[in-house]
């Protein structure tokens, strides 16, 4: 048989999608850090987490990823995209780039993605749960209602999040995300 007719194939890297996902991860990371300062619920959630909390949200097998954790002062910070030398306590992996695309283009909400087993979590589960709850809140800050309605199971009511709190929060989160303070 003529082997050369059937060459070995190394599938290409999906450059554009990688960039898009990295950007989204960056934004989400910074936004969470920001929300941890601006929103009391998020703050609360983080307070309950272990002190050396350090999580990685990434895409298998070869990234992109983002690291988020508490620094020595216990302040929640976005810690960049390289987990080297960091002690990860909770690791959240999206099974593949396409799955990440589905999530970050809001075709699949976190809930749906979890239900469809597109995420693999290792480390202490309670932290993971807290994190997903936080994610939901941050989404409500970052995104317009129409999108978030699909992304979260139930959109916060007046009682839980007054428009005032929401819009002020949104402004704060955005500015902090951009400036990184």
């Amino acid at each position, binding site marked *: 048989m003529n082997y050369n007719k059937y060459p070995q194939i190394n599938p290409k890297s999906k450059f554009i999608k990688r960039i898009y996902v990295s950007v989204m991860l960056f934004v989400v990371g910074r936004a969470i850090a920001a929300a941890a300062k601006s929103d009391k619920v998020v703050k609360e959630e983080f307070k309950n987490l272990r002190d050396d909390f350090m999580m990685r949200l990434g895409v298998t097998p070869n990234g992109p990823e983002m690291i988020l954790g508490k620094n020595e002062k216990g302040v929640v910070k976005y810690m960049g995209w390289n987990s080297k030398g960091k002690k990860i306590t909770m690791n959240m992996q999206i099974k593949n780039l396409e799955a990440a695309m589905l999530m970050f283009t809001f075709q699949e909400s976190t*809930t749906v993605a979890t*239900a469809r*087993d597109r995420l*693999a979590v290792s480390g202490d589960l309670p932290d993971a749960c*807290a994190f997903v709850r936080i994610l939901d809140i941050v989404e409500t800050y970052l995104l317009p209602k129409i999108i978030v309605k699909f992304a979260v199971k*139930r959109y916060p009511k007046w009682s839980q999040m007054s428009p005032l709190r929401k819009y002020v929060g949104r402004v704060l989160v955005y500015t902090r995300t951009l400036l990184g303070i």
Partner: protein
Amino acid sequence: MQVPSYYEFCCRVKTVSGHNALEKIPSFLDKLDAKAPMIITDKGVTGAGLITIVEEAIKGSGVEIKAVCDDVPPDSDLKVVNELAKVYQEKGCDSIIAVGGGSPIDTAKGVNIVVSENATDLMQFAGVGVIKKRLKPMIAIPTTSGTGSEMTLVAVIADHEKNVKMAFVSYFLLPDFAILDSRMTKTLPPFITAPTAMDAMTHAIEAYTCLGKNPVSDATALKAIEMISLNLLKVVKKPDDLDGRLALANASALAGMSFSNSMVGMVHTLGHATGGVCHVPHGVCMSIFLPYALEYNMHKIKNDLAEVYFALAGQEEYAKTAPGERAEKAITFVRQLNQDLHDATDGKHARCLKEVFDREGNPMVPKDKLSDIVKTALGDASQFYNPEDFDYNDLMFVIEHAWEGTPLDRSKIKKG
């Protein structure tokens, strides 16, 4: 039947069911060319003389049982695993037969990891998909027909010294064979049969109503529900009804297939926590919380629940009931089932948390523990598969009713 735009389903276990299924064990071991199995089980099982049945079934087949270890505690841990692994290696076993409920089977899975990977520290294999090679042949023989852990790829093993619970997730943790033999569950006393069967029932119903549902898990779930509701009371009233026992065993296996693929929701969120905080048996929690969780999710699962009613009550009832009421009826049915079991077991089967007593007869769930339970519950992953979202207050609201045994005041449920 709606096909979700994406789903996964996997159940690599070869299921063997029958009144004399045990007799097949030698040939199965032979298939995996193993001839020196080690039996892992707990005192309860040996006490009930079930191991002798297994030994009888294997005797004179060339397969030699090298070791029988029945000292697996209800809350097994790393220490036990390592001890058993040592035994396994010393006795030169080449396969594992796990007999019993969740605890022995999980322990056996742990042992299998240690002996197959020659691991010194089991914990380095904790997490999802860390184990990447086939483990030693393993046969699971459930004796409770409830947990379905013979069908799951998860093993939860605690390390009481470090005081952590670690989850091991890998398809290689699935036993090669699950053997359902009516003789194995025959001697299970009614007041235990009831909650374990309700445990399976919960698996099936949640599998059918929660977010991870898919066509295959739906099909198996429906079958499971049907078989349980047809047989449970019969068996509880007449414990040595072998056909009934076998049906329940099958149902539990089917339920296991379903929920290990579609995952479970609120019932387990609360159930795990209650078990964790107050050490209430898993099955008991399940049977108590089931109706409440269904009520809480009602507005999201109306249609699915209506279909569940078909399996619960049978076609005649289903046909008689107006489409709009079927979902409600399903909940009533479950409540009634609990009630009937309560009567049939002269009160041993608990309908609400305050009815749960330990052997000494003192209540296991004091009201002041509820908030702890809920706090723990919020850390349970199963919440993400629940159709409706919930926070601390929601859970408190539900569990308080479950404690009292009063139906939920639906108006108070926050609908998204």
